């Protein structure tokens, strides 16, 4: 399929390496248009871009929740776009946090955390419980272990969702606008947890509109527009006057 792109091995410092990735839903317009991108191991990459620019689609391609049309994605040294039907095995290694939390309403907080490790990874119950309580303490919501999702505020639900993602001990976590559905007063409690996580050495890919988070926690920043990558650079460069004109224009619009 992609003979020229998949022959060379990816750089050792890349957790994800995306090469010439194309994706379209209707065969007419590219939602992802020839994306080349390297996401560094242990680093936090923030993806910015206007609505409809393909950020969520790119994120879902990274863990094969979406099928790609052409191109290659490498993850942790192997080409995952060749793994197709075994996508669910790959997703044990890559967790995801959603805009609307997506906790399972029929399970308590604790059960939400333990269900995948137990059923998917085969972790022993006692071990899963131990880890769940540790992680709930880490996201500062230990006292809600026995509550059900509908009894929690949005911010609390999102912190539980982050703990649930961490339960899989993933190599990377993908965040898709994790604070966009939150009331303003709850954004901070979630971002604080994410900042801690970003500093912990796990590979994070964060789609967000929170420039403050990008400034605080990002190592690299990506700007997308119309299915293409407009700029990809270190945070210091991205937020300086060295950045491309389009980046500066975008940042200006965002701060209005």
């Amino acid at each position, binding site marked *: 399929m992609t003979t020229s792109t998949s022959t060379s091995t990816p750089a050792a410092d890349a957790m994800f390496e995306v090469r010439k990735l194309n994706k379209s839903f209707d065969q007419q317009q590219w939602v992802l248009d020839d994306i080349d991108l390297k996401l560094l191991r242990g680093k936090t990459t923030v993806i910015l871009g206007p609505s409809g620019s393909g950020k969520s689609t790119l994120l879902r391609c990274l863990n094969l929740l979406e099928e790609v049309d052409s191109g290659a994605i490498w993850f942790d040294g192997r080409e995952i776009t060749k793994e197709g039907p075994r996508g669910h095995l790959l997703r044990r290694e890559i967790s995801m946090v959603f805009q609307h939390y997506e906790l399972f309403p*029929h399970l308590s907080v604790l059960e939400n955390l333990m269900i*995948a490790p*137990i059923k*998917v990874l085969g972790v022993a119950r006692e071990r899963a419980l131990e880890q769940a309580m540790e992680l709930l303490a880490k996201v500062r919501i230990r006292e809600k272990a026995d509550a059900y999702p509908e009894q929690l505020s949005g911010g609390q639900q999102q912190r539980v969702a982050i703990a649930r993602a961490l339960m899989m001990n993933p190599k990377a976590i993908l965040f898709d606008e994790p604070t966009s559905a939150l009331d303003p007063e709850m954004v901070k409690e979630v971002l604080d947890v994410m900042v801690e996580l970003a500093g912990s050495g796990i590979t994070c890919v964060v789609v967000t509109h929170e420039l403050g988070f990008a400034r605080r926690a990002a190592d690299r920043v990506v700007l997308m527009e119309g299915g293409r990558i407009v700029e990809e650079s270190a945070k210091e460069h991205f937020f300086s006057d060295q950045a491309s004109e389009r980046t500066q224009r975008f940042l200006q619009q965002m701060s209005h």
Partner: protein
Amino acid sequence: MSESLHLVLEYLLSPSFFNAALTTLALTVVSMLIGMLIGLPLALLQERRSVFVRLPVLLYLWLFRGTPVLLQIVFVFNVLPLFGVVLSGFASGVLALALNEGAYMAEIFRSGIQAVSPRQRLAGRALGMSSAQVMRLVVLPQALRTVVPPTGNQFMGMLKSSALVSVIAVQDLLLIADQTASANFRYIEALSAAAIYYLIFTTLFMVIQGYIERWVAPRRSSGRRSWSQRLISLTSAQPRSSQ
């Protein structure tokens, strides 16, 4: 008047009415349970993309929802023996009612499954679950909530449809009431006794449905269950009560 009441009471307690009531109850419950066992896989198969899987299912639904149950009962009873399959009246009745019910339960399960948001499935998949695990651990437990009330309706409907098997001489409530009455022309008393049994069963179903609805309702922690209890319930397939 009091003589009438006395006769109704006598019928209610008579072995023939009691056995007929048990027959009706057994017909209803067994047909419903088999109908649900048929309906669930039909609903799951309809989730598949392949036309070759979905087409036979649609054919089944079309056939059993498009013809009268009475016809299906008479058909099973009279046509299967021509192919060497001889079933008792009761078994024929159960077979026809269950096949018919399967078509309706398939629709109920399907709409229950579709009521679960696609984003919940995505969350399950993102946690590394296989499609089967997403269905079993995420979708079906949530679909249960929407499925219970219409299934309760189906139970009551089945209680009444079961009377149709009297045409193939199954000794159910209606047939016994009719036979008893035609012997002495006390129609009011015999039919009243049958009606009372039907109402008792309907009430029973309603009470059970109420319990089940509370059981699958959105959960709130009560604080009374220990973690170990929760862990046990997590690993068992059954949904558990919040009491």
